[in-house]
């Protein structure tokens, strides 16, 4: 919309995305049937496609289909194995749409947009700053972990269970200390960076990126709302 860069797919206001996530949690929580869940995941997938996350959306859909057919297969089983598996799939079906949607939202929202939107809706900085930092730091942890594993191999320590039982103290130290050291260093560096950019300024924050609601926000919101209401009031259709 107002950003100058060319984006593939439509741009959605971060506030709308949060509302979508809430709606999705509610919808998944009150889903009347498995078929309805598939429609919900389809909707999320279409949302991902329209946001330009084509590969992610397709993979997410395929993985869900695999889960769906596995669930159908477990319905044929009997006994305690079935109970165990059904319980597991029950959890998957409950969490999957929300996780799928939050994945799309996280990868399409820039931190600047998020902060700007939160600022516009007057949410305390004490909550917004940690959340923004946390979401951006998650992928870094995975990267760090790969390096740490390599370094551990060089010292003949591996993060496996066997090694843990053999040398508990050593393994604990080798896992926690580098991760926490890295985290603490990043915290210092990020603080300096954000103070330099004037995050402590008491005046109201202005932003290069202007967030505002558009027609696409309304359409997406109405789609998800329709999905939710259909699940609540026309349960018979999905059984």
């Amino acid at each position: 919309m107002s950003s100058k860069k060319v984006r593939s797919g439509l741009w959605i206001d971060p506030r709308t995305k949060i509302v979508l996530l809430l709606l999705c949690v509610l919808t998944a929580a009150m889903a009347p049937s498995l078929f309805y869940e598939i429609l919900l995941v389809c909707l999320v997938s279409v949302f991902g496609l329209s946001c330009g996350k084509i590969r992610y959306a397709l993979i997410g859909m395929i993985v869900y289909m695999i889960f769906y057919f596995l669930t159908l297969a477990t319905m044929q089983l009997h006994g305690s194995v079935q109970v165990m598996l059904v319980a597991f799939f029950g959890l998957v079906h409950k969490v999957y749409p929300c996780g799928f949607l939050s994945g799309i939202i996280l990868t399409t929202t820039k931190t600047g947009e998020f902060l700007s939107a939160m600022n516009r809706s007057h949410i305390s900085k004490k909550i917004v700053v940690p959340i923004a930092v946390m979401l951006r730091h998650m992928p870094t942890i995975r990267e760090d972990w790969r390096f740490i594993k390599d370094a551990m191999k060089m010292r003949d320590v591996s993060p496996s269970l066997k090694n843990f039982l053999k040398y508990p103290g050593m393994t604990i130290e080798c896992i926690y200390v580098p991760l926490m050291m890295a985290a603490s260093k990043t915290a210092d560096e990020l603080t300096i960076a954000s103070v330099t950019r004037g995050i402590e300024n008491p005046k109201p924050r202005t932003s290069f990126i202007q967030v505002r609601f558009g027609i696409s926000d309304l359409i997406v919101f109405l789609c998800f709302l329709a999905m939710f209401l259909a699940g609540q009031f026309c349960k018979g259709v999905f059984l």
Partner: protein
Amino acid sequence: MSNQQSSYLNKKGLTVKDLVSIGIFNALFFVFELIGSLPFAPNPALTFYQPLGIALLCGPVFLLMVAKVPKRGNIAICGIINGIIWFVFGMHWAMDLGYIVMGIVADLAAGMRGCKNTKWNIAAFALFCLGPAGVFLAYSVNPAAWAQIMLEKGTSQEYIDIMANSAPIGMLPVILLGTVVLAIVSGLIGRKLLKKQFEKAGITA
């Protein structure tokens, strides 16, 4: 350097540095929570022990966070963020509410000694870990209503049955006590790590 640090500590309220640190340690905290709860949560016989997994793994991270941000409000913010994140991932509302409430309680406990006393910090961690057990508190108060809510959430009837069988009412104190004990063990390990590694490196504030 020491001058700077003392002026930083004397500043009232949470500064940007504190907020960023809380955010980063929360990311690490969340990763360890995921690792801790993965072997438990999807298994109906073990779901009730999920807080134990969280308590066992997160101690050192929590202690370092408190040591780095020794101010009031740090743990409360940590709890609120955890509640929001778990809600987004579709968890039961009692768990999210538990995180927020126990975060504030733990904040008060650690704040009694100004977040400086390690023993009180470990106690605060034990309190914090009781947050996710809020689900099971909600369960034991009214098992019938609980089953209904979970059924609406898409969890199957058999799951509830197995949970009910593997968790007689006497299970609740075991879970709560076990969580506290494991949290204290994890906290002691964390204290050892802090003394051995991080205090020497000058990372703690």
